[in-house]
């Protein structure tokens, strides 16, 4: 079954691009909601690589990993949103640069 498909390297390139976008978003943006979205972007970049490799090598391990990653990221978002709400109640703002109480 030789179906002409998109080569693996393309997926990897897309994934790298998504990851860089995510990383830059985490580093640059000050709104924690955006930062969370960026983190999700990075996680999904990794998911894409998993799926691509799993498909390419014909094994299921990578696909299973993706399920785990999704579960973990869902949990992470739940905890993170709760934190953000608590921070907003204390500081009336959610700018991450204002969270500097532990400054040395």
């Amino acid at each position, binding site marked *: 079954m030789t179906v002409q498909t998109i080569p693996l390297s393309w997926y990897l390139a897309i994934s790298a691009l998504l990851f860089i976008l995510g990383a830059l978003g985490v580093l640059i943006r000050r709104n924690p909601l955006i930062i969370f979205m960026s983190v999700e972007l990075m996680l999904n970049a990794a998911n894409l690589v998993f799926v691509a490799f799993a498909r390419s090598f014909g094994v299921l391990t990578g696909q299973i990993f993706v399920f785990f990653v999704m579960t973990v990221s869902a949990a992470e978002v739940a905890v993170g949103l709760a934190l953000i709400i608590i921070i907003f109640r204390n500081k009336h703002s959610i700018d991450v640069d204002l969270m500097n109480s532990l400054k*040395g």
Partner: protein
Amino acid sequence: MENSGLFSLVPLIVFLPVCGLLVNIIFGGRMNEKAIGAVASAASGLAFVVAGLLGFALWAGRGEAVVVPFADWIHIGDLNVAWNFRVDSLSVLMMLVVSGVGTLIHIYAIGYMHEDVRFKNDTGRYRRFFVFLNLFIAMMMILVSGDSYLMLFVGWEGVGLCSFLLIGFWYDMDTLGRPSFANSNAARKAFITNRIGDLGFLLAGFTMFWAFKDLSFAGVFGGAEQLASISPGVILFITLFLLVGVAGKSAQLPLYVWLPDAMAGPTPVSALIHAATMVTAGVYLVARSAPLYTLVPQAQSVVALVGGITALFAATIAVGQYDIKKVLAYSTISQLGFMVAAVGMGAYVAGMFHLVTHAFFKALLFLSAGSVILGLERGHHQLAHHGGHASPTPHQDPHTPGDQHAEDVFDPGDMRNMGGLRRQMPVTFWLYLIGTLALAGIFPLAGFWSKDEILLDAAKNFPLVYILLTAAAFFTAFYMGRQVWMVWFGKPRHPAAEHAQESPKVITVPLMVLAGLSLLGGALNLPYVHTLGKWLEHTIAAAEHEVEVAPWLAVSWGGLNPFVALLSLALALVAIFIAWLLYGRKPLAEGQKDPLKKLLGPVFTVFERKYWVDEAYWAVFVDRYVDIARFLANVVDGRFWHDFIHDRVIAGTYNWLSRVVLDLHVDQQFIDAIANGLGRLTTRISASLRRLQNGFVRSYALAVLAGVVVILGYLILK
């Protein structure tokens, strides 16, 4: 088999006395004197029963020696020493003598020690005495039952320790109960003299291990013959150094000096340890080592000569002593000389025979002497309480005096204070008489048979020793006759002797048993029958090489030579007659000088002063030793080590150094600088590091990213 069951009992002969002493140590505080003594006596008596059972088993097994393994002890390299018990006719004979005589003396001590402690009511000491006695029995059993020279040595040292503890039993007073170090000094003297002998034993043991790689009797004797053919010098070395040990333990020349002083111990101790059992350990050692001694005739000659000379030497000293126990002490040395001479000549049966009979009659004599001393003590006590002659000091332990006839203090052991005692103490008198006749070798008492056997063997093998021993036998009869007439006949020379009282049954009954044994002990090895000889044959191969002897010596009435026997008997009778002439016909009056002094003049003084051997040892060894010790203490330790090294070199250098350090302000400028500098450095580093903690979450995230990039880069480029 039934017999092997009996043989496995053998550890009990050691552990029964140990149990006895443990009971007395743990529960003795709540027991009365009678119970303490009964426990100790029972422990010793049960050991005797076990020894008897072993003897029966041995007899049933036709005398075959049995080795009973008990415990592994040492495994180092080639050295394997197990604690095995050896049951053969020789060891069983010794066990029977030790536990049998030991039990009688335990019983006697119940009465004797009671009278001793009565003056102080010190029951703690009463208990301690019986603990020591039981310990001694246990140690002696280890000595005679061990299957190797090392186990023998363990027992050897153990009995030495007990001897030390018991000589110094009244360590805080002298023999008359006055506060003094005299008794503890006597104990130290015995201990140190024995150490010299033990060094010889140790050297012999080391050589054995070097030569045979084994210390068990079987191993040593098995390899001895081969070694003797290659290098007889090694065997000679071993045997002569064993002789040094024998001379220490069995009080032979030149190491005998401790035994007379050992009379400082309580009288039961003198009887048990310093007459009947411990001092015969040397004789046992030579008899046990017979296979070694048989290989080197030179060593045998030396042993025989040492024994012969000691026998005569000590017998002459005994002639000039005034203390009842000192006479017996020198007599013991002399009789040990007989035994050592016998085993030295290869007459092992005769030596062991004399060992047994001597244990009977010498224990009898010592214990009777103790009874006499107690009798005088009672007389003195009565006098002091019912007016009249009241001399000072209550006596704790009425024993050996010095040589001076102390005027102010009554000495119940001095024969010059006695006289005419046979009327006050008739039982003790008859018992003493039996012991005396047995010791003097009068037919048909025990001493006659055993001494005669030694003399006959000496006459055949070693004429010089025969002459020495015959002369010693003559002196033996003489000093015993002198003692009997001085103590029992004539008129009392002291009020205490006039009021002396007979001892109670607990004291006299054991004496009666011993007297019976002294009367009949000769039956052990009668001519024609030779029970003991056949008994010991299984253990000690009789090396009876027939020597050419004069025809009169070749006459044999079943092993008894009439000429030798009659000569020794006649000499003994003559000696007793002379003693009667001097001391019996005209009894010594109060304060009178010894009649022998008139007769012999300075020679008697030599006897009385014991050839000045103690003084000579003092001048040659002890004073020099003290000089060296003083030099070491004052000059080496005091002036060199303390004054110079410690004070000048070490303390001086330290002082100088600390002053230099102080002057250079090392503390402030150097040590403080290090401490402060470290603190300042830490502050500075942390000040620069805290800038990293800037509070910007995004910069932390950047740091994490950078870290991930670095680590991944490293992993990829690696």
